[in-house]
């Protein structure tokens, strides 16, 4: 029996974040007094979970790539690919929503912020993963090369998104001597916002996992049909 309670949980959590995210009062100091965020601060509930769930999905993808290298079962290869694929879609959505938000708070959709550049590079590396996969017709070779590349891509992604932007000045919160918007993390994120944000992150992780499993189930069906 396939478990489905987590699918219901993802629906409940996401409907909750959409409703609460639009209605809760924002912390006055962060949203109005010391920044030009205003109501756009609510984007925090929608833009940021894209990146959190992308990180979760590519971590699952990494896990299956390592598993494939230890035991070359084609199923692991399919798992790794499909989780990375949904992760890349979320990354593209994160980049687009970030650009929209930046246009109205930082004054330009793209201001060469270290985090923007890092995210773009990381995404391109993942796009290259799919190009690399499709360039090899031999199943066995494709699986192994793709798994090795996927592990490499993950460990480039982490410094690009999480480490490098913290070392230089950044418009994003958390950069060195960050100007522009003050940090959304830490003290400016009040308890009510946390109550909306974290359920939202979990909801998006579950929904994107759900979509990935749909894709990989189709792939496994195709595989079965080919071998039959």
């Amino acid at each position, binding site marked *: 029996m396939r478990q489905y309670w987590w699918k219901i949980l993802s629906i409940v959590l996401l409907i909750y974040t959409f409703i609460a995210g639009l*209605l809760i009062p924002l912390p006055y100091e962060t949203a109005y007094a010391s920044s030009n965020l205003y*109501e756009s601060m609510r984007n925090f509930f929608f833009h940021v979970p894209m990146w959190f769930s992308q990180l979760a999905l590519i971590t699952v993808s990494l896990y299956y790539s390592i598993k494939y290298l230890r035991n070359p079962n084609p199923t692991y290869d399919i798992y790794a690919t499909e989780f990375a694929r949904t992760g890349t879609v979320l990354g593209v959505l994160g980049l687009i929503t970030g650009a929209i938000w930046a246009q109205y708070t930082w004054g330009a959709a793209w201001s060469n912020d270290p985090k923007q550049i890092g995210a773009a590079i990381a995404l391109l590396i993942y796009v290259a993963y799919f190009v690399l996969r499709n360039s090899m017709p031999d199943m066995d070779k494709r699986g192994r090369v793709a798994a090795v590349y996927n592990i490499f891509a993950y460990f480039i992604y982490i410094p690009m998104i999480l480490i490098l932007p913290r070392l230089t000045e950044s418009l994003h919160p958390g950069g060195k001597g960050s100007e522009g918007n003050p940090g959304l993390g830490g003290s400016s994120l009040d308890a009510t916002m946390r109550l909306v944000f974290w359920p939202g992150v979990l909801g998006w992780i579950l929904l994107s996992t759900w979509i990935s499993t749909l894709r990989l189930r189709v792939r496994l069906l195709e595989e079965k049909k080919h071998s039959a």
Partner: protein
Amino acid sequence: MKQLIVTLIVLFFHLLANAQDSVNHVDQTRTGLYAGGKIYVVLVVAVTILVGLFLYVIRLDRKITKLEKNG
């Protein structure tokens, strides 16, 4: 699962009550879509899209399950 849902519902009403409060207090700082409390229009639109998307994913899930059973 049941307790979790109840907790979420209670939490939601708590936040809703807070939202009503803030509309009365800081209304003058709100412009555009927020003026006159029309935020609920946006809310309905956003949730409709979300629910539509969920229905689509659920249908897809059912279809794939059916294929898996027949195969």
